[in-house]
């Protein structure tokens, strides 16, 4: 059937959310012992592991993005270094160069590895959120949380946090990474056509969504701290 109705007349989306509602986010920090810091985030039922190593001579940030073969509906072998993941790695790198206080680590390299375990849309933004948690877990100082969110545009309404069906529905979407406290934009990416007049509304919606995400992340971090401190007390 051609043209799924992404936003019904009553204002519901396909999965029952309203236009500005985010998906439910669940996250854990400190999942792996091998890495300096790691996190698992489920916003899309996707997992990201991330660890950072300190090496070499200056604060270079190195990102690697990959997807598990079983991450999408159809199994597909995904070799490393294909065009898509290289691009994604580059985006992540740019985002985090803007957020991490790199000058504090001269002559070192920070590696961020992200792996999508299951993908249901918004890969980039979930990667950013997961990496943020991992970097925090590793104790690397950042200017602020980096929160990202995708926003789509349907029937003159911006939809926050697209799921896979919405993303593939042929609508123009935009990904935005934000440092919420200062309201600075770390990265803005869009490769669809959109009228200039609507851009402002989209960015506005994306910023609100990012702020929502940052609240969730903040809670996760605080809870993790509490757990960790109570553990260490014992």
């Amino acid at each position, binding site marked *: 059937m051609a*043209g799924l109705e992404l936003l019904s007349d*009553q204002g519901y989306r396909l*999965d*029952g959310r309203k236009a500005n509602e985010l998906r439910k986010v669940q996250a854990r920090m400190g999942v792996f012992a091998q890495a300096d810091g790691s996190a698992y985030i489920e916003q899309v039922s996707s997992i990201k592991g991330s660890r950072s190593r300190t090496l070499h001579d200056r604060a270079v940030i190195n990102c690697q993005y990959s997807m598990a073969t079983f991450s999408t509906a159809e199994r597909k072998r995904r070799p490393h270094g294909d065009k898509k993941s290289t691009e994604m790695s580059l985006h992540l790198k740019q985002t985090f160069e803007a957020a991490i206080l790199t000058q504090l680590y001269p002559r070192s390299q920070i590696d961020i590895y992200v792996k999508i375990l299951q993908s249901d849309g918004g890969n980039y933004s979930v990667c950013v959120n997961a990496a943020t948690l991992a970097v925090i877990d590793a104790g690397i100082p950042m200017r602020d949380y980096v929160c990202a969110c995708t926003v789509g545009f349907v029937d003159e309404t911006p939809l926050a946090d697209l799921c896979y069906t919405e993303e593939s529905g042929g609508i123009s979407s935009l990904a935005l990474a934000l440092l919420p406290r200062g309201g600075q934009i770390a990265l803005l990416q869009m490769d669809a056509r959109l009228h200039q007049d609507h851009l402002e509304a989209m960015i506005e919606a994306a910023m609100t969504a990012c702020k929502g995400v940052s609240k969730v992340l903040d809670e996760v971090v605080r809870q993790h701290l509490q757990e960790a401190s109570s553990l260490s007390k014992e």
Partner: protein
Amino acid sequence: MIKTEKILHLKSSRGRKVRVVREHYLRERVPCYSALCQGDCDNEGKVLPGDLTHYVVPDVGIVLDFLEILEFRELQGIIFTQTACQAVQHNKGRRQYNRLRNLLKDARHDCVLFANEFQEYSYCPREKGESQEKWQTRCVYSAAVWYYNHLAGMKNIVMVTDDSDAVAQYSSLNSGVYVISMQEYLHNFWLDVRAALELYSSIAQALQEREGEVSEREYSEHLPHELLEAGIKSGRYLLGILNVNKHRAQQEATVTTQISSNKNISGDVLVFGSKHRNRAVYGDSVVVELLPRGEWRGRATALTETQGEERSAEDPSSQTMPTGRVVGILQRNWRDYVVTFPTREAQSQSRNSQKILTVPWDHRIPKIRISTTQANALQDHRVVVRLDSWESTSLYPNGHSVRVLGRAGELETEIQTILIENCISVPPFSEAQVRLRLLPIYLFFSEVTARRDLRESHLVFSIDPAGCEDVDDTLSVRSLSGGRLELGVHIADVTHFVREGSLTDLEARARATTYYLADRRYDMLPAVLSANLCSLLGGVDRYAMSVLWELEADSLDVASVWFGRTVIRSSYQLHYELAQALLNGEEAQVPELNPLTPEERDHRLTQLTQALETLTHVARHLRAQRDRGGALELEGMEVRAQLDSEKNITALVPRQPLEVHETVAECMIYANHWVAYKIQEAFPHQALLRHHPPPRQEYFSQLQESARAHGFSIDTSSNKALALSLEQAVDPQDPEVNRLLRMMATQAMSQAMYFSTGALPADQHYHYGLALDRYTHFTSPIRRYADILVHRLLMKALEQEAGLGIATASNRELEETAQHINNKNRAAQRVQKLSTELFQCLFFRDRDPQTDPSCVSDAVIYGIRDNGVLGLAHCDWTILQKGVQKCVPFSDGRVKVRISVLSNRCHADSLLLQLIRNLPHESQSPAPGQSQPKVQLVQEVRRQAEEASQQKASLKGRLSREERQFCQSKQPNLYSLLEEIRELALMDAEAGAEKMCATTA
């Protein structure tokens, strides 16, 4: 919000089955849209009233099969579940789904949508091994139960399903929730809605038939949807709308391709024969596959008699064109059709099966098979039917009857037929729609102070056809202190009375325009508004929307412009002849001045004359400005009715177009133009404008050929060039030639259309005919809905300027409305043309063509085909008899013809012209008489129509009731008459001259 997961089994693009897990969010608060709600739901928009006996929740199957019944306005309190809506979307396609959506949006229907699958307690996940149907039924039932509990048991809920297992399973589970079948439901609750019951049995029968059918195949199967889409993408198939040739409906159809990725195919694809058409019906969006080049054929150019049987012999065809066959249908585009039941003799063979082949009124639609038990009662009647299906095993599509219109050949039946065939529904206005805000008669002080008061300061007057009752435009002009001029156009403030979203507004939007038929009109607004409250009558205070320009004294450039709401009092209600007489300095009686003393009268008269003169001066300047840009003037003729004291028409005389017509029109165009600027400036993407795309060059070929035959050349490269060369193409001996050429140019024009500015790139906003870069309709809100929209937009633009944040309709909504208005306008034009033809046929039907002198008239030949010629007699393009091609070179294609009626039981009658003799050019009567025949015809048809209706009224008492119902003003009203005649003159061909002609502005 609670998150669950939904497991779906879908087919992937390669056809493999995939198990997909999707997130699914539930919430506690889902609005119930009931007035009885106990949990203060967030009920916005439509709300079900609390005073009904019950609410009804139809099952998925019911919504799929019997949506038509649920569309009856009498059925109230319907709750559609989301489950059912989704099923409609998946199983029935977009068209049916949109119908359901419109039903839900329409405030006149008492029905709401409940998002049951997003409600925490009414959602039930599908269990393992449960069939889709069972699960859907369970979902709907649980929604019904939720409603009962949510309303705290105050309202009984009836769930309607045709699944007998479900009735047995659920009916005794809950006390307040009844589960019954559709038939039972209609019998128990809506026994008085007979039409619904009849429709039910008709549909049920059609459904039963469908199940019990097995026979061999008549057509090849359609390909599955995925294959079609893949084929279109790869360029193997082409997508387009099927268009059937009216004159050879069984054989020839073309598909107008939309975007063709296939480079060597441009334009239309021919589909020849019913096998290749493969069950597609006129208007469907189909997918075609091209045949190998060897099988391509040409379009037939020979004339056939309209009734003629298909000839098996090869027609001599023109050059071959791409030919294809239909492999699948993407979207059916079925509407209601009017059919005629055959007579008893023709029925006899098929009697036993109870299935009857009926013949649609529209030639382009195939015969429709209908199962009915009332065949005897219905013979020779016109009946509205709907198509249900067309299986590959059946030669003809299956349908069911919806309602009976009446006996074929009767005036009332035929008029209704024309309306339904064009999808126009004009029920009489209901109480509530007329009631609106019944205050006015006098003005409110608060309202007056909020507006600019022009009653004392401005001399306002209107110029309309004599006897006009809905005056929607008035003019004013005055000199300001600095030598500047102030020109004002004041338009009736309809939006003050018709609030957005009110019942009146909804009805007006649905109608979109006032329909002018040959003998009646259907108003867009109730008569209270159109003829009284909104109408800017002379001597009374009225609200208006005004545009005031300040013009420089000499150059007449616009110094400033003011838009806004005003109060005016029109001082003079002039008509065109009177105004022209004043301008010419002739003695004229202005009725408004009669009671005054002579000195006073003279003073006032000079004042008025002066104003008119200034106005004319300004208008000339504006016109010249537009002419420089390349505005076109196309042929139109006006007719004036002479009345006796009782307002009966005694004669129609042709009128020389007066300059004052042009003056008024020019001012209106100017106002429209400026308003268009204003609203586009304020809402760059949501303004309703009107554009007129340049015509396609190939349409001019006939015009150029004809012009060449007379020794003229027509340059069609731009509107300016066209206007210029048309002006030069004047044969001093035969003024008729220029008129004809202009008419042919009109035919070549494309149609002017409304659009929302966000939907088209800026370079397509141009109005070709008027040579303006932006144009809209602002000046006739009483009879056009577009103008009402523009008024609202203008008001919002002004409020926005004043710093109020105002939300307007989105671009998409506006574009939808614009398309709707365009469609309705087209339908209105067609209806008008058809009804005129109907009356022509009624006129000639009772006359013997051999003896009656009125059946012989002059005609002009405008085109030659292989075996005949196309001729023009009076105002009507008609096919001449075949076999006369040796008679004429075009240049002196004057002939005498005899007119007779080709009557046709199932379709509309048509006129047949028979050639009697050639007229040598010299013997043609001189210029003054040329327009006479046309005018006479109009007059006679008119009289005939009146006689007919009077006869009917006197003979049959039962008809008079219907007449009261349909004719909104019983005595044909003068305005409609004038309107009709004018439009008739303008629209010699169906290509609407409306957009071209300044007078309609």
